[in-house]
């Protein structure tokens, strides 16, 4: 297999950056918003490269952490536009008398942003520790995360008077004083998303190159070998899973700002497993690949489902089957020409 021209392999991230930087000028309001949503999803995809690619941990429940981040910001925005003490509209017609206690702190923006970052991370760390320290992993872990996604979505839907239930939370007007409707805020949020995406990319590139990344990959290839070198693989896997959840939470918060709605339909079983296919398509070991994968699959979904809706499920099914069997390293695999 002729060696891939190095400039192209290292060039991909810079190519993406150049395109992303040109986008605000080139694209209309709607398309920029669409691209910003997909870039928020790409942040989550980067987290999956660390968790699934390098850590060997298949998580089918990233939607849970995506949702936690999204709901934290949405709860703040619902309270931000209301005079103190008043309840959001859906609580009134759900027959609620007073604002639930745990809603009150979300009035402050700093608390909400801190919650959008910390809550998914802590929940993930606790859940991962509870499962990994009993040496349960692999297929079992994947199935349990899927059950977690289902249980979380069902719980949110059932507590309608406190979480907006199946409707989710929507109808926001401003964040930190910036009106969501104004195009300037839209462009500002786009740059914020791009900045966080780049920061996550650089951060993960350093982390996976460090000894932490080395040991994470070693634990992926053979847990017992790592144990007999004196390392417990559990903290490495828990920290990787927690970082994946952190990025998913941030992605959820950003997506909610762009989409103007967060609902259980984004955090259930089906969306969570589709998040994995973005990374599979892009390349589970390559950070740049995962970004391209997330953008490509979401753009394809938007294009195909507009033109011939019933075909989209066949396309998605085929993506899952073909990419995973024939292209285990995804698009990036074609580029690098060898297994990572």
């Amino acid at each position, binding site marked *: 297999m002729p060696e891939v021209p190095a400039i192209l392999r290292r060039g991909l991230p810079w190519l993406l950056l150049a395109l992303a930087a040109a986008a605000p000028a080139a694209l209309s309001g709607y398309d920029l918003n669409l691209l910003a949503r997909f870039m928020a999803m790409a942040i989550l995809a980067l987290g999956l490269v660390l968790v699934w690619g390098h850590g060997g941990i298949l998580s089918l429940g990233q939607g849970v952490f995506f949702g936690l981040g999204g709901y934290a910001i949405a709860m703040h925005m619902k309270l931000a536009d209301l005079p103190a003490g008043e309840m959001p509209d859906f609580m009134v017609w759900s027959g609620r008398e007073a604002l639930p206690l745990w809603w009150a702190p979300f009035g402050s923006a700093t608390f909400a942003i801190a919650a959008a970052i910390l809550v998914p991370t802590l929940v993930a760390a606790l859940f991962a520790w509870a499962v990994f320290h009993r040496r349960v992993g692999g297929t079992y872990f994947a199935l349990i995360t899927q059950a977690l996604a289902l249980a979380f979505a069902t719980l949110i839907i059932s507590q309608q008077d406190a979480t907006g239930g199946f409707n989710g939370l929507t109808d926001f007007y401003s964040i930190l004083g910036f009106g969501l409707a104004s195009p300037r805020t839209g462009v500002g949020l786009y740059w914020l998303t791009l900045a966080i995406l780049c920061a996550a990319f650089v951060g993960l590139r*350093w*982390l996976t*190159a*460090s*000894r*932490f990344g*080395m*040991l994470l*990959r*070693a634990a992926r*290839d*053979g847990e*017992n*070998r*790592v*144990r*007999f*070198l*004196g*390392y*417990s693989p559990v*903290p*490495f896997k828990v*920290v990787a899973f927690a970082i994946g959840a952190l990025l998913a939470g941030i992605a959820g918060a950003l997506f909610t700002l762009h989409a103007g709605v967060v609902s259980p339909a984004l955090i259930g079983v089906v969306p969570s497993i589709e998040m994995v296919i973005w990374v599979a398509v892009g390349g589970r070991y390559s950070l740049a690949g995962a970004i391209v994968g997330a953008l490509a699959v979401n753009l394809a979904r938007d294009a195909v489902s507009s033109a011939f809706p019933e075909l989209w499920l066949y396309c998605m099914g085929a993506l899952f089957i073909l990419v995973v069997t024939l292209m285990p390293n995804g698009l990036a695999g074609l580029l690098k020409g060898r297994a990572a």
Partner: protein
Amino acid sequence: MSEAVADLLLAVDGVTVDYSGFKALDGFSLTLNRGDRRVVIGPNGAGKSTLCDTIIGRVRPSEGRVIFRGEEIQALPEQAIVARGICRKFQAPGVLPTLSVRDNLALAARRDRRWWKALGTGIPPAERAAVDEALETVGLTARADVPAGTLAHGEKQWLEIAMVLATRAELILLDEPTAGMGPAETSRTADLIHSLGPHRTVLVIDHDMSFVEQLGAPVTVMHQGRFLKQGSIAEVRADAQVAAVYLGHAA
């Protein structure tokens, strides 16, 4: 504390390992003093590997205790036991195939294994010396930056021995270290074990008689998970019971 007890490093006391009915170890006991060399031999299925598994914590004994420097360790997780200074070489080489030879050694040589200490890149100076020294002793310096997976079988065995040394463990368990090695390499391994010096204790599991002789260490014979005989290689060879066990007659 009397002098004899002071230098008692390891005591395996009445250990039984039950694989749902099949007793790999049946009330087995063994003691090792600091600086000892011991070889454990016995026919296949005598429980030699299970003994190693039990000491290193990979298998939990259903009865009995394993005491290392006066502390009971049979209930500890593997990494805690390794951190206390016991290291083991597996029958099948346990090297990390995707990492380079040097990285394998670097991971073995690390003193502080907590995860946030692993966030730096490259090898800290303190451990670089131990890595180079280990490379030197097993003669893999030239192959230092090659992924471990591409090493020949013999070289993998050497790398793993080097990794065990790099951990600077006090008690070293070698499970058939010369499996798949030629005669020249086998004798080089014997010399290596001799050269480990008094501050290391080595327990070797093997049934390659020529290698056992080159080691010249006292021998413990195991049979069906139980202690059978102990003595110098000559005494054990002459013993009728051992010969019967090896040749397959009932003990």
